[in-house]
């Protein structure tokens, strides 16, 4: 990394950033865009292919109706108009990951266009104008072997996996986003985060950035403050996490500002984000704009969704995330900060489900953001991938509230559930975790604790109730945690009164 960078605040004092975000979403349809092959992630290379997605001579595409439906629902959720008539187009270019050496995409007739969404960053609302959402197919995956970087430069050879070739994609393109000033990196991040939540609530995609089912290309250009003419932009790829989006944009703003202020000019190019080093480097130079020679795909017929179909799909839209979050925060009575933690922890859905299963919002929030978040972190899983369900968390909380277990034991119950030992009550039974309610054993332990620490006992007798902590701790230790701390406390105070 040798780029000169200007201090971010200084850069913002001189320039206004303008953003443009292109998000590719892999749909979660069972089959590919134009054939019946499975789309499941992680299969052996080239096992999910057929003459159509391999582009064998003579094969022909047939549109996946489910994918069209998903595209229309996404368009509607983005506030777009749905085209009454649109076509696919061929985007022609040679590359080994393209089985036909053209991508079947949409060009000047996207299925959805002209929408907008509103997002919020630090209490300020930003309207993100949406240019279009269109359907296309994914390419195969190249694995470059023998080079130092895993990139094509310096590689000895490359392997191709066409399992991904033909997986349905929706590309969502914003219009230029102006006026975000120093919040530009956070607005971009919040927008993609919003899209992720929205797509998840639509149920149309797995939206896993780390698996590539949600991919963002971040465009940014700078113009001197007060000007209105757009500067030359760069497009940064390989931005594979929400954090990378804001970091890559922040980097590009600082880099471009340094170039411009020293009298240089920005080269229109694709840049590659290096997550490890936190910098971008030049990729393909787009100065000689590639000519994709788009023309309408003659192997497919136009798509003309009836107004009735569009309205029926509109009726299937779930509540939009921004409205939903506002409603849930009010219902649950959390502060902005408490609620912000939930959003940041991607725990909204699981907490909602836990509350629906009978737990209080506070307890649901506590379990998912502490113990369960920790375990998810340790194993690199999403909360939803943990082997415990919201219903089980609610059941666990019921056991706590009934006094069967305490919080400390509950953590062991969680461990048991995650280890596949069954429902929370089964784990309590099989591990013998229930709080000891045998008053004889408890009383004996209390007496031993008093005898072992006469000083503390005397203090309690003198009215210094806070000294009870040490004795309670001793009892709990002896009982190996399987006692109700409140009951121990009551017993102690009774003995020493």
């Amino acid at each position, binding site marked *: 990394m040798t780029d000169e960078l200007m201090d971010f605040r200084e850069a913002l004092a001189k320039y206004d950033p303008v953003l443009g975000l292109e998000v590719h979403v892999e749909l979660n349809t069972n089959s590919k865009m134009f054939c019946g092959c499975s789309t499941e992630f992680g299969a052996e290379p080239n096992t999910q292919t057929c003459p159509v997605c391999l582009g*064998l001579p003579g094969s022909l595409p047939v549109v996946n109706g489910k994918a069209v439906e998903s595209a229309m629902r996404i368009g509607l959720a983005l506030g777009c108009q749905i085209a009454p008539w649109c076509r696919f187009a061929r985007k022609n270019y*040679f590359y080994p990951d393209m089985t036909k050496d053209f991508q079947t995409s949409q060009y000047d007739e996207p299925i959805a266009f002209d929408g907008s969404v509103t997002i919020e960053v630090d209490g300020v609302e930003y309207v993100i104008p949406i240019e279009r959402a269109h359907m296309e197919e994914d390419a195969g995956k190249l694995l470059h072997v023998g080079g130092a970087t895993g990139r094509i430069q310096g590689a000895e050879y490359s392997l191709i996996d066409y399992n991904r070739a033909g997986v349905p994609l929706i590309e969502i393109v914003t219009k230029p986003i102006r006026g975000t000033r120093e919040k530009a990196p956070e607005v971009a991040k919040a927008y993609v985060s919003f899209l992720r939540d929205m797509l998840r609530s639509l149920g149309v995609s797995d939206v896993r950035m780390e698996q590539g089912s949600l991919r963002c290309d971040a465009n940014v250009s700078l113009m001197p403050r007060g000007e209105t003419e757009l500067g030359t932009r760069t497009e940064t790829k390989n931005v594979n996490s929400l954090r990378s989006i804001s970091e890559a944009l922040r980097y590009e703003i600082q880099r471009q500002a340094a170039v411009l202020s020293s009298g240089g000019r920005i080269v229109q190019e694709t840049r590659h984000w290096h997550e490890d080093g936190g910098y971008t480097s030049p990729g393909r130079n787009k100065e000689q704009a590639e000519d994709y020679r788009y023309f309408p795909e003659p192997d497919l017929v136009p798509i003309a969704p009836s107004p009735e179909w569009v309205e029926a799909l509109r009726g299937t839209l779930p509540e939009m995330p921004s409205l939903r979050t506002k409603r849930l925060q009010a219902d649950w009575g959390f502060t902005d900060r408490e609620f912000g933690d939930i959003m940041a922890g991607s725990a909204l859905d699981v907490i909602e489900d836990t509350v629906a299963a009978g737990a209080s919002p506070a307890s649901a929030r506590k379990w998912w953001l502490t113990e369960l978040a920790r375990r998810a972190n340790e194993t690199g899983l999403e909360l939803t991938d943990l082997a415990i369900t919201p219903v089980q968390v609610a059941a666990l909380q019921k056991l706590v509230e009934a006094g069967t277990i305490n919080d400390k034991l509950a953590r062991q119950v969680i461990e048991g559930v995650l280890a596949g030992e069954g429902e929370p009550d089964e784990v309590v039974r099989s591990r013998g975790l229930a709080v000891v309610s045998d008053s004889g054993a408890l009383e004996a332990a209390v007496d031993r604790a008093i005898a072992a620490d006469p000083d503390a006992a005397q203090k309690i007798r003198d009215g210094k109730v806070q000294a009870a902590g040490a004795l309670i701790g001793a009892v709990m230790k002896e009982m190996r945690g399987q006692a109700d701390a409140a009951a121990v406390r009551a017993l102690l105070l009774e003995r020493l009164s």
Partner: protein
Amino acid sequence: MSLTTRSAAELAGLLSRREVSAEEVTAAHLDRIAAVDGDVHAFLYVDGDRALSLAKTIDARRAAGEKLGPLAGVPVGVKDVFTYAGAPTTCGSRILEGWIPPYTSTIVQRLLDGGMIPLGKTNMDEFAMGSSTENSGYGATHNPWDLDRIPGGSGGGSAAALAAYEAPLTVGSDTGGSIRQPASVTGTVGIKPTYGGTSRYGLVAMASSLDTPGPCGRTVLDAALLHEAIAGYDARDSTSIDAPVPDVVGAASSADVRGMRIGVVRELGGEGYAPGVEQRFDEAVALLQDAGAEVVEVSCPHFEYALAAYYLIMPSEVSSNLARFDAMRYGLRIGDDGTRSAEEVMALTRGQGFGDEVKRRIIIGTYALSSGYYDAYYGSAQKVRTLITRDFDKAFEVADVLVSPTTPTTAFRMGERVDDPLSMYKADLCTIPSNLAGNCAGSFPVGLAPEDGLPVGFQVMAPPLADDRLYRVGAALERLLPNQLGALGALPGSLAAKEAVR
């Protein structure tokens, strides 16, 4: 009478009455191919063992009393543009040398479902680009009427195989006349069905919006029987039409043209048309009139621009469809010696694997689609296409079918036009409008031109999904012109001479 000179309908009758076995019929045709194809070169690949084995299976099924399709046991040649799992498919191009497709096209599958016996793959101009079969990467096919003349193209192999009695039926594909023009110059019947009436799945694309698979035969009824077997909706082809197949066999049997309005297209004739072609065409029109048809003259003013529009739309689609031949997955690969990049290997392979005509069309199409030129070329051509379709619509208001010569001349000499692409393109002057509009059309033999003794073809065009009308007119001509090519069964021209010497 030898088995190879029988019509498909006759063979079907012999087979169903078990007077002859499918194995005998197949073996007779394989023998015939072995005897004459050295001169004709209609076949690129003869699938002899599999054909005989399929024939035995059909015989066994028939012996078991199974109900079979009307053409079960009848051999058929397949243009090398259709995939047939296990048989090499080259499209006449070196770039596909050695490729054996792992899947079978819908057309070939329907042949197999109907119990027909694919004999092998017939020669063609490379990727169906040409009107003489001289553009094949594997050597030209010769016209059995005169071995020094072209058999038409691109489907010269399929037409010559019929004329040389190597197969009673063949399937072809027609993008600008590739079924009809070869039929015309070999004295056979070739039909381009309505676009969408026959499935393109497994037909290696030349120009997707124009390509149409269709039947070829020596008689009108044979073509109709094959048409019925291969046509109809296919969910694998999005442009396939979900409608019943018109009753083409009934039409071929009735041959009744009384009251039919026959429109002679004013623009398709005159200067550039050989006198013998015009003479035989006029005679045929007169015969139809005598048989009770009403003859009217129609004008299709935009046909004049058809060739120009075609040579923009077709190459544009070609430039995209032929991109996939990049040496990465199948076929030829040149220069992969570990020192070259993928891009260099792609360029070398395409440079050596494609012939001149293919390259010419890729270059034209790439140019026509490029930004800044798209509207002027591809865009304008699409507008012309719409105008041509409207010309047809208007003409079909006053006529049930339109007629013209199929091609302006009889078979020209080999080598005569190879260095003059424009004169080669003109062979498709009369056939291209129907591809642009997507309606159906067919070519039927109407005798020999007096000046050179070579076959003349008569084109009939009908509205979309009115394919039966083609057969009605074709069958009428067949009856009105008995023995127009000499009795069916006699060998055509030069091949006969050659055999006599042998």
